[in-house]
């Protein structure tokens, strides 16, 4: 049961959203932008999902800590998320490194917060919710906050059950019967399974809810040591020894199974998470009116589908955004962003096509990611011949072909 909404409570929580990741494994999508600013699901950016979680959970004091290639993200936040009322003491602020405490860039996740301690001082929140800007999930943080307060925790770490084979990519958590975290290993080579389920492990979602004073004390202690200045690698392992650190298992309220949560770490994972959206009743449903995902979009006319003389046009299992013109083309299992024009007799199968892409006539594309403003000339074939594709595109392990933003094709 969801608890009644407590406005006073939510004013006591400050969100620090870490959006500084370079996202090297998402290259070339991160060639011109930070990972949280990478477009996703046709009209969104990756960061929109976490920000939507915040407003749907009633949290309206948000600091976004940026670092690399932050122009695109900064612009998105400025034009798209300038929706809070500062007179009501709500805000979303973009904070690039201020270099107040040192001349260094952020060394790790904990250092990003350490270098911004003065923000905590100004706001004096009782709790700080640390979020990552590069995860796709829907989570009601108010349940987490209530759990944290009821159990008088110093730190609560949301965790999720994943298959044991996948667990070595994450921070693997061991808990006792009272949800207390007794064991924490960041990216272990031999992850430990849950006692009750031998093929499942509990992993950290990279989200942390701290009592402010404990957070400040621990990141200051950490800043004085030789360490990676990372929550997962340094702060959490130290804290489980001396503080009251609990886990909060993230489950879907409707199904009681592990909730949908994806760390979009690689191009293949990015492609899969996009293509997951096109199914009927997908695991991650964008059409859920109880949990709206908001974003910023330019105004475009409705999408237009033209049925030409050849009468080969067909669209199935796809997301098509506003402003597109699809001229007698065949589209299947694809996510098409706004302002895309696809010429006649062309086809796109299992592809993610971003804003402003122009696809000529008789083009065939499959299993591809085409970044913004790429023009694909008439008759081109993408995704059918690896040797050919590798000459000009990035091709992933699973054979997904990626064209970078404004790429010039021949």
């Amino acid at each position, binding site marked *: 049961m969801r608890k009644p909404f407590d406005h006073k409570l939510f004013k006591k929580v400050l969100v620090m959203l870490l959006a500084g990741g370079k996202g090297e494994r998402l290259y070339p999508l991160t060639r011109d932008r930070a990972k949280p600013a990478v477009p996703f699901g046709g009209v969104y950016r990756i960061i929109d999902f976490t920000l939507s979680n915040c407003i749907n959970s009633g949290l309206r004091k948000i600091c976004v800590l940026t670092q690399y290639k932050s122009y695109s993200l900064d612009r998105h936040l400025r034009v798209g998320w300038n929706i809070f009322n500062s007179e009501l003491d709500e805000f979303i602020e973009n904070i690039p490194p201020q270099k*107040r*405490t*040192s*001349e*260094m860039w952020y060394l790790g996740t904990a250092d990003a917060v350490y270098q911004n*301690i*003065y923000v*905590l*001082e100004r706001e004096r929140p009782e709790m700080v919710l640390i979020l990552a800007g590069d995860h796709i999930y829907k989570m009601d943080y108010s349940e987490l906050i209530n759990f944290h307060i009821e159990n008088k925790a110093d730190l609560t770490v949301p965790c999720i059950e994943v298959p044991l084979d996948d667990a070595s990519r994450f921070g693997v958590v061991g808990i006792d019967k009272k949800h207390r975290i007794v064991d924490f290993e960041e990216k272990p080579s031999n992850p430990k399974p849950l006692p009750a389920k031998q093929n499942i492990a509990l992993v950290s979602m990279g989200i942390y809810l701290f009592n402010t004073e404990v957070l*400040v*004390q621990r990141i*200051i202690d950490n*800043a*004085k*040591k*030789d360490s990676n200045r990372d929550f997962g690698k340094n702060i959490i392992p130290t804290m489980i020894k001396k503080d009251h650190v609990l886990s909060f298992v993230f489950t879907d309220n409707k199904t009681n199974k592990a909730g949908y949560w994806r760390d979009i770490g690689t191009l293949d994972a990015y492609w899969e998470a996009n293509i997951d959206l096109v199914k009927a009743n997908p695991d991650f449903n964008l059409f859920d009116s109880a949990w709206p995902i908001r974003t910023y979009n330019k105004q475009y006319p409705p999408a237009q589908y033209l049925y030409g003389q050849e009468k080969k046009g067909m669209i199935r299992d796809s997301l098509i955004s506003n402003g597109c013109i699809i001229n007698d083309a065949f589209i299947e299992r694809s996510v098409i962003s706004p302002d895309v024009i696809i010429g006649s007799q062309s086809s796109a199968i299992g592809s993610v096509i971003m804003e402003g892409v122009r696809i000529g006539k008789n083009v065939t594309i499959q299993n591809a990611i085409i970044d913004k403003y790429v023009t694909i000339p008439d008759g081109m074939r993408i995704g059918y011949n690896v040797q050919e594709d590798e000459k000009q595109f990035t091709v992933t392990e699973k054979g997904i072909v990626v064209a970078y933003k404004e790429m010039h094709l021949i």
Partner: protein
Amino acid sequence: MDTILLVEDDKNQILLYEQEIAIEGYKVVTAMNGLEAIEKARNYKPDLVVMDINMPKMDGIESMCRILSEHRNIPIIINTAYSNYQNNFMTWSADAYIIKSSDLKELKDKIKELLIKKKRKDNEKTV
């Protein structure tokens, strides 16, 4: 002989502290503001810093953070006439917070204690 960096903008207080700390058998280096303190910390590599907060050019809190970002292991004692800075999160980076008093016993005891602690830590590292 351990070196102590004394950061203080009041000349009379410098004279007093310098004398009193030197009597305990330490070498004293002085700086008159936060900016000068950063430079002296680089040049003299002190074993401990005694830091005032209210100073011209750069205050003690910012100076402390910058010194710590360059030399993580130097113990820092904040020595100020005001108690309210204790609410300031950044001052939690200091190893001790002392409110100025004419009796310097508390300050002297803290210096001794923190230097012993630091030596123990340094030894642990070399072992």
